[in-house]
């Protein structure tokens, strides 16, 4: 769910249900490194509710697009981590058998 204004799409708060620090902190990390982002932070309004609010303010681009790009960046990182992990694993197994 996105909470923002109709006239200015560059500032929005995104409410993610069933998520916690795991995703929110990772996304905050990728978003803060995006030069289009002027502010990004997240909060968990109450520990009993399983949702997080992510606030994104940009220099002009729609906040939802920037958030999606941040997630995409994180996905690419994950894919790369997985492939390098698999490579390191085969390398390790090969060195063990030799």
């Amino acid at each position, binding site marked *: 769910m996105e909470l923002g204004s109709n006239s200015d799409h560059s500032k929005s708060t995104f409410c993610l249900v069933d998520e916690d620090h795991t995703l929110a902190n990772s*996304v905050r990390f990728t978003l803060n*490194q995006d030069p289009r982002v002027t502010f990004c932070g997240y909060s968990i309004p109450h520990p009993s509710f399983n949702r997080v609010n992510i606030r994104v303010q940009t220099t002009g681009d729609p906040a939802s697009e920037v*958030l999606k790009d941040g*997630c995409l960046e994180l*996905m690419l990182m994950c894919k790369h981590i997985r492939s*390098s992990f698999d490579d390191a694993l085969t390398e390790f197994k090969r060195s063990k058998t030799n």
Partner: protein
Amino acid sequence: MNLLVSSSKERERSTTRMSEEDESMAEQSDNGLGLDFILSLDDVPSKLPPHLELFRTRVLCNNDAPIHTDTIHYSGAYGALGVDNSQQFDRFRENFKVEVKRLTDSDMEFDMIGIDPAIANAFRRILISEVPTMAIERVYIANNTSVVQDEVLSHRLGLIPIRVDPRLFEYPDTAGDDNNEKNTIVFRLHERCQVGQPRITVKSDKLKWLPNGSELPSEDVKPNTSSKPKTFTSFTCSQNSLPEFSSNSLDLTDSDIILAKLGPGQEIELEAHAVKGIGRTHAKWSPVATAWYRMLPEVVLLEDFEDEQAEQLVNKCEPNVFDIEDIGKGKRRATVARPRNCTLCRECIRGGKEWEDRISLRRVKHHFIFSIESTGALPPEVLFTEAVKILEDKCERVITEFS
């Protein structure tokens, strides 16, 4: 430092002037006098000065407290210095490295280099609480005359790790109680201590897998009907006949977990149903005993430690980080031989200024020594791959939600 500040201020001034005079800037860049030219000047730094680079990449562990513990995320953090701090995926790909250090059936240790704590912590959190496994969730007790209460026995059963690939199963159907061969594993336990015999210990190897599902009737058996009574599961076929199980059999990881002790005449008869779940719901579904990481320790001797002092230093260090080498002429010097052993006990920098100022204990912020201890459902390397996939799925969910 003063020089540095003044030069960055100058640069700021020059950039504002340029934004005011866009046209002249265009002209300037045509003549090779634009921003590129300014950045190529010798007194404009292209990378961070050494002391800032140290604070950016290292935690300094001083005698009183560690400092520079945070990581700097903001893309424009060093903008005034002309250094770009934005993350480029290409740069990440160049710098990121994994090195496996140890790998056994149940645990592994590997180095993840060039990654932010936010991501490393996400993997740790997912490993502990979101990678699914199978665990006993429902226990139908037909008879329990042992001293262990039903609820305590059930809890103990729940914590037994089951060696089965959870990817072969579906999550239980929350709407109805349709327990079929795709979401339930049934175990049966029937132990009895005969009167006059010594006490017996019931261990987890007494749990027998029932591939055909539950055998306990779920309702009163009518005496005159010949049809089979309804049970607590509705399997359409035996799990034995499924191709997934013909290759890898289903088992408990440990056969010697004590469940209860039976005195003469006592008996336990029960059926335990295992379902798929995640550690966030209950710790019994957590696939790891522990998953943790630490930053790579770095020990730097700022001044030489020679002869007696070198020996003092080696003796001070319990984890055995330092070694002594001969440097000729009968002189000996301390060296940092095994920095990975450093537990950050800080014993070496205790004992006054003379020690504190000569040794620098640091942690490398983007180098993680990651350890995973599996409970046995999946090997540790598979667990990590699954955790990364789960983070990917989370991102994908957000992307689809806001498109």
